[in-house]
């Protein structure tokens, strides 16, 4: 098993955190994983990006120019990374800021997720990135609920432990949306 993905969006949208959660889930699954944040001057300009590589084998490069999947939370990230996705790869986009007509690729599995709407239904707008993560996991099969649950428990511990259920629910609702709407 080998999967590499780029996650990108505005700073503050939770990109680094969902990348973290995906990595922790993969580690829980017993796999090798690397998490690499965007690094350089661009981190000061308000763009957040991370690259996560998951493999059963020893991982070489922690960066990729042709990811198996891409999760974009805003339009500038779609514009930058859509062309990078490997043919046949997955492209999950945040429907709150991106429209169907913004896509240019037809050789990838695309999914537009209304993350804010679903997050509001879940009960907290701040879980929008978790909704996107759930959709991404459903589209790629890269991990599953036990890993994600363990990852959330590790991320939200102590006083923050009460945040685990709502975040898990947001992930599950993202997965449900992807199951029902993927082409």
């Amino acid at each position, binding site marked *: 098993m080998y999967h590499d993905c780029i996650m990108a969006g505005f700073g503050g949208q939770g990109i680094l955190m969902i990348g973290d959660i995906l990595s922790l889930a993969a580690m829980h699954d017993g796999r090798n994983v690397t998490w690499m944040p965007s*690094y350089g001057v661009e981190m000061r300009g308000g763009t957040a990006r991370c690259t996560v590589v998951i493999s059963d084998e020893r991982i070489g490069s*922690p960066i990729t120019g042709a990811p198996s999947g891409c999760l974009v939370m805003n339009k500038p990230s779609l514009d930058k990374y859509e062309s990078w996705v490997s043919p046949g790869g997955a492209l999950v986009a945040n429907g709150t800021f991106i429209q169907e007509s913004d896509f240019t690729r037809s050789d990838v599995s695309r999914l537009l997720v209304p993350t804010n709407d679903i997050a509001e239904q879940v009960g907290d707008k701040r879980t929008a990135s978790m909704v996107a993560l759930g959709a991404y996991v459903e589209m790629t099969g890269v991990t599953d609920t036990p890993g994600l649950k363990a990852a959330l428990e590790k991320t939200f511990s102590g006083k923050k432990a009460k945040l685990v259920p709502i975040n898990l629910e947001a992930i599950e609702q993202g997965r449900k949306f992807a199951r029902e709407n993927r082409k």
Partner: protein
Amino acid sequence: MSDTTQQPQRQMMKGNVAIAEGALHAGCRYYFGYPITPQNDIPEYLSAELPKCGGTFVQAESEIASINMVLGASAAGARCMTSSSGPGISLMQEGISYLAGSELPAVIVYVSRIGPGLGGIAPTQGDYKQVTSGGGHGDYYSIVLAPSSVQEMFSLVQTCFDLADKYRNPAILLTDAILGQMKEPVIVGPRPEPKAQDKPWALTGNQGRSKNLIKSLFLGDGEMEVQNWKLVEKYNRLKAEDTMAEELWMDDAEFIIVAFGSCSRMVESSIRLARAQGLKVGLIRPITLFPFPEKLIYERTASIAKVLVVEMNTGQMVKDVKVNTHKNADVFFYGRPGGGMPTPEDILEKIKEFY
């Protein structure tokens, strides 16, 4: 603590943090440093953790002060460390030379940034030649180790402490922002209690033993020459006993790539791509940059005639490879300086060009 917490556990850890935790595992209880990107996670972590385990954290007024505080702590027999990057390490060179001249152990963590000058914070391997040549003035070398994973950031900083003590010589852990900023699972056990170090030469207060003297000044006629040859003997022992390199896919290799540190990770991916196309490429990854794995390079190139050196600079380690390559082999170079990172696809193209 319950038994479960005593078991080594896999945890996602940032490279820089793994270095700091590794230093604590090695029994380092004294850190002196001055901030510079991209290594600030190290002092940040140690400033919180060292006081908890009875250690001392000092943010000094400069890099020059930091390295001289290291010299003082080392002379008193303590395991101690500093960390910095490009311009900061340049400022420390006088102190590192004094450490080498005084035969004092110390660990210097070097998370490179692009240069020359103030340069930038992007990853680079442009400091290879600085660290492997000693760096400061005089006829000396520092021990240099180059990790290529977060697990190795954790383990090799500990090896640095052991080798520094074994040879009474400064040891440098050379890394960059890729490994410093990335997270990977690291197997970490509970932090052991620091072991007592056997350092009969240390300046511990003269209590019923003969006087210890630590100095790097030798003004007597011929004294310095004797001292220089003594250092060479030490370096030769270091070469014989503690040279480290990793070999991958070398069993059937017809073409060798030599790469170290973060760059070797991109090379690993490129070799998987090459092998999928039937190209039999192997990897030699020097782990100790000083001592360089000279003998290994010579032996392997006696039977494999093509060597590609890949570095994130304009060509530094390639000179060490060339000097040690068997006369029958050709050496090629592919480099990306100034923050340019070779992708596995870029390297694959070079493999095809020279194979």
